[in-house]
């Protein structure tokens, strides 16, 4: 990461002021393994880790493929996605330096849900700035965060200078992730709280690597070899957390990162320094990016609307160690429907991108009659996205 040459302040210094120290240490360490503190480990167990590795027999049958398909099911965590893995760690390290209140922003709501429950588990307060349009369209997410004890505010809010200025210009501003983040950071700075980061940074991927490490162990326990590993990419933390342990240990022959055709970062993105966030408050990182000012279309997979690809994943893609795929919403919806009927689990639309690639791969293996093993990360369930699926079905059919 680096600061922009012309910045009026140092983003790296800002990290220093808003992130827990141990989080920064982990962000910039080169240790290959970092021990999980006992208290944190206990919370991972409490939320049901290790999450199950499930043979997708229903999907195999539906595709009539000779391939074996397994999925690591992060939707089995109480908050329904992998996000909890880093939310817990960041909350814990904040608590450890005497902070009793964490702050973040959320768009679709998965991250805010994870943060508010993590805070609850450590008896901390949490404040979530939720993009106003999501706040209004996803009432259940707000209810859930409230049940976890989170204070949820529609952003732009009147809690920050930044929000007040925007509201002054347009009281009906629908908000954006950049605005919500600016508000969260301002709020954290002003009140000397800690800000939690949902993805992209190496440290988030580090925390998510519990997914891949567990998966490796689970495969080993059942004597199974992974040949092809697949995950979807928003910022890259679920894909990285799932696949890096395999890549690092040279297990598997193919790694496929899946994005959305509507947010064509893999196919159209440039590899360059860009702000990690759309607000431009975090440092520049060298990554594949559509530009932090990119305005994503309103696809249902809110978590894939991020403009870039985590720096480490960008390098792996540049070096051709990881392949990529992009699919459009119609393809995603069809894949999700097939999976729902075959496995019963409603995938988050984001995770359905991985499923689409799995299906394609499984059919390819069928054509060549290859008995390989595909393992993918089902990063979250879509039970709170059912109305989205309904609109999708109305729009796409």
């Amino acid at each position, binding site marked *: *990461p*680096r*600061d922009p*040459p*012309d910045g009026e*302040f*140092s983003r*790296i*210094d800002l*990290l*220093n002021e808003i992130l827990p*120290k*141990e989080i*920064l*240490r982990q962000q*910039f*360490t*080169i*240790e290959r393994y970092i021990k999980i503190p006992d208290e944190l480990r206990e919370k991972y167990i409490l939320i049901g880790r290790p999450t199950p590795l499930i043979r997708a027999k229903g999907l195999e049958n539906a595709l009539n493929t000779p391939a074996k398909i397994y999925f690591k099911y992060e939707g089995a965590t109480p908050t329904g996605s992998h996000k909890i893995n880093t939310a817990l760690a960041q909350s814990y390290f904040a608590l450890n330096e005497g902070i009793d209140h964490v702050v973040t922003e959320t768009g679709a709501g998965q991250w805010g849900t994870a943060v508010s429950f993590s805070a609850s588990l450590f008896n901390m307060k949490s404040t979530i700035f939720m993009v106003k349009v999501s706040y209004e369209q996803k009432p259940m997410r707000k209810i859930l965060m409230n049940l976890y004890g989170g204070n949820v505010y529609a952003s732009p809010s009147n809690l920050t200078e930044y929000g007040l200025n925007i509201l002054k210009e347009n009281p009906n501003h629908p908000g954006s992730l950049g605005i919500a983040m600016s508000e969260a950071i301002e709020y954290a700075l002003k009140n000397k709280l800690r800000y939690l980061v949902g993805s992209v940074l190496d440290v988030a991927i580090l925390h998510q690597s519990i997914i891949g490490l567990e998966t490796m162990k689970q495969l080993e326990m059942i004597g199974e070899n992974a040949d092809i590993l697949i995950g979807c990419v928003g910022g890259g933390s679920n894909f990285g957390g799932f696949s890096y342990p395999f890549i690092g240990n040279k297990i598997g022959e193919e790694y496929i990162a899946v994005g959305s055709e509507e947010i064509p970062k893999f196919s159209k993105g440039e590899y360059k320094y860009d702000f990690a966030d759309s607000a431009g408050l975090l*440092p520049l990182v*060298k990554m594949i990016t559509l530009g932090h000012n990119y305005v994503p279309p309103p696809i249902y997979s809110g978590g894939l609307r991020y403009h870039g690809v985590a720096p480490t994943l960008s390098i792996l893609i540049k070096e051709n160690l990881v392949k990529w795929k992009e699919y459009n919403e119609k393809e995603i919806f069809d894949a999700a429907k097939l999976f729902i009927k075959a496995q019963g689990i409603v995938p988050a639309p984001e995770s359905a991108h991985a499923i689409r690639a799995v299906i394609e791969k499984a059919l390819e293996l069928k054509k060549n009659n290859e008995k390989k093993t595909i393992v993918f990360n089902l990063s979250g369930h879509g039970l709170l996205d059912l109305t989205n699926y309904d609109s999708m079905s109305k729009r796409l059919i």
Partner: protein
Amino acid sequence: MKYLVCYMTLGYPNSDTFLEFIDKSQNLGCDILEIGIPTNNAKYDGPTIKSSYKKVNKINIENEFKNLSHIIRKPTLALTYLEDHENDLENFLKMMKKYNFAGVLMPDLIIDYIGEYKKYHEFVKRNELNDVIFVSPTVPDKILKEVSEYSDLFLYYGIRPTTGIPIPISPDILVKRVRPLVSNKLIVGFGLSNEDINSVIKAGADGIAIGTAFIKKIDSEGLDSSLNLVKELRGILDET
């Protein structure tokens, strides 16, 4: 003996004070001088060094080099970004050579020009200068090991993402991990506190590089304090 690499921005805070700092610091324990060439594009420098560049942006580099050339008694490196010289690197290197510089250190060489670093390295050598290579913790082990053998004089290891900002890291862990990969001398820099110095030396570094701290001392307490800091650092290094 542990090396102390002393950084100062060229002509900072003014030509006279700069020259006095360089002159005296060589007597007080600096082993190697590192001279920052002002730029608007200090990609890996923190706010203190960046603002020092801004303050001296009207100086005549060749004049400063000429004055400097008369007083340097220790190996002297120019710290400059390759991005600033993509089109005039040869001229710049020739000027350095002319004014007694021992070598050059380009912090963006390995990070942003990794695919062509050998070409640039050879180019520096052909101009009869040492090419000191800079690496950071994000450089993969394999590359780090390879470039450490190419590097002249020593390998410069910046342990923080930027200079002068005390991002919390574990210096000992970082240094212990790279030490076995580096057969060259290993100099560690970027935001070192006194505690950091102890721990990187214990972890096997051959020396340290200090910069932001000198500039802050000059800004806040003046030249003498910054020279005292050189002495103090020399002391710490000699004790470890």
